[in-house]
């Protein structure tokens, strides 16, 4: 029997090595696998390269990993946010390397890794400093730059439901980078709200087929959903929403 589920988050991050490249799903906080990141901090791997759209929010999740001094290099599209003080401090102190990649090129380069594409010509960034030094070519009258795949040793992502084969569905815009990252890592680790019976995910609606997934772990379900229905009333940390306006 194939069973990709593991009992707890410590099991989910076993074996991650110093110096690894790790993709972390999420767009801001939505879809960020906070529990897996906490487990990674506990696990201790360091000198990491992190590939993620942002560079942490507030003090939890990716920000906590950065604060713990585990990250040598960030590859992302948008590190600077109103609540990215941890990254900002490290960057200004010269304690972290940064590679900025336009968001669509980031997504497509990750997809290319997963889909076995050696490189591709993208129109994004042409003529800007982010394309400096990159191979350029005019195709059918349009300028493109050559972009290479981004691969990882490990992907840590968050999905909504999964089964023991690793099939996944997501929730709303928390889907974001999960599906492409799952395809681009040697080992893909997923936290889900719920592990469901094999066969209970509609095969027409599976977003990430299990072939891309290695480990699935159930974490505390999001508190704004009950029995599959959105109920609201709390924020992403589970704190009651102030309903004042």
């Amino acid at each position, binding site marked *: 029997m194939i069973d990709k589920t593991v009992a707890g988050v410590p099991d989910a991050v076993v074996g991650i090595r110093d110096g690894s490249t790790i993709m972390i799903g999420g*767009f801001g906080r*939505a*879809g960020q696998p906070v529990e897996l990141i906490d487990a990674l901090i506990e696990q201790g791997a360091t000198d990491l390269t992190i590939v993620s759209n942002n560079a942490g929010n507030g003090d939890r999740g990716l920000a906590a990993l950065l604060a713990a001094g585990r990250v040598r290099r960030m590859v992302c599209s948008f*590190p600077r946010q109103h609540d990215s003080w941890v990254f900002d401090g490290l960057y200004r102190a010269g304690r972290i390397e940064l590679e900025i990649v336009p968001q*669509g090129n980031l997504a497509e380069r990750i997809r290319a890794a997963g889909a076995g594409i050696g490189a591709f010509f*993208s129109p994004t960034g*042409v003529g800007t400093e982010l394309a400096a030094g990159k191979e350029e070519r005019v195709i059918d009258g349009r300028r493109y730059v050559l972009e290479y795949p981004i691969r990882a040793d490990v992907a840590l992502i968050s999905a909504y439901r999964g089964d023991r084969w690793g099939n996944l569905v997501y929730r709303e815009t928390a889907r974001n980078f999960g599906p492409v990252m799952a395809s681009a890592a040697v080992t893909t680790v997923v936290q889900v709200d719920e592990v469901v019976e094999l066969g209970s995910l509609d095969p027409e609606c599976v*977003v990430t087929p299990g072939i891309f997934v290695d480990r699935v772990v159930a974490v505390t379900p999001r508190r704004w959903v009950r029995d599959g229905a959105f109920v*609201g009333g709390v924020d992403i940390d589970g704190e009651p929403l102030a309903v004042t306006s």
Partner: protein
Amino acid sequence: MTGLGRAELAQRIARDIPEGSYVNLGIGAPTLVANHLPAGLEIILHTENGLLGMGPAPEPGLVDPDLINAGKQPVTALPGAAYFHHADSFGMMRGGHLDVCVLGAFQVSSSGDLANWSTGAPGAIPAVGGAMDLASGAKNVWVMTDLLTRDGASKLVAECSYPLTGVGCVSRVYTDRAIFDVTPDGFRVRELFGDTTLGELERLTALDLT
């Protein structure tokens, strides 16, 4: 003050978007355009973090942390919405399927170059997000901006001094003083707001306008 305020400008832009358009509104001021889309007309909003058919902000108690826009603000999804992952979302954009994208700007050059992601200031933390993808992808890239910076410098320039977001990508600029089309001959004034005159615009921008 002559010309349009922020909200009026957003309304003016909204009026130029035909029904049935697929539209991406950039972070910041362009987001305001959503508030002014004519009721009863169906215009489909794209947010690059994976949603077509984005609706307005939720009721305060019904904020869904999984449902946000590119500015990471809570939004809703309309009947007819669809979710997709980031590669599909940016494929949609890069593939030229969006009709209109409205972006903010630091500078726009008379050949349509856009600078809106970095002032190039030393020590600033660079962050581009989806700006370059939006600039290179949509069928029509419109800019929404004040004509002048707080210091009175023109955002319409002969050549951008800030780092570029995209080359020759902007087709129209909506400012508080006038609407400009980007043409092979540079900026052409499409519409003047308030008592703004062409001469005044030429003086403020130090550009030859047509």
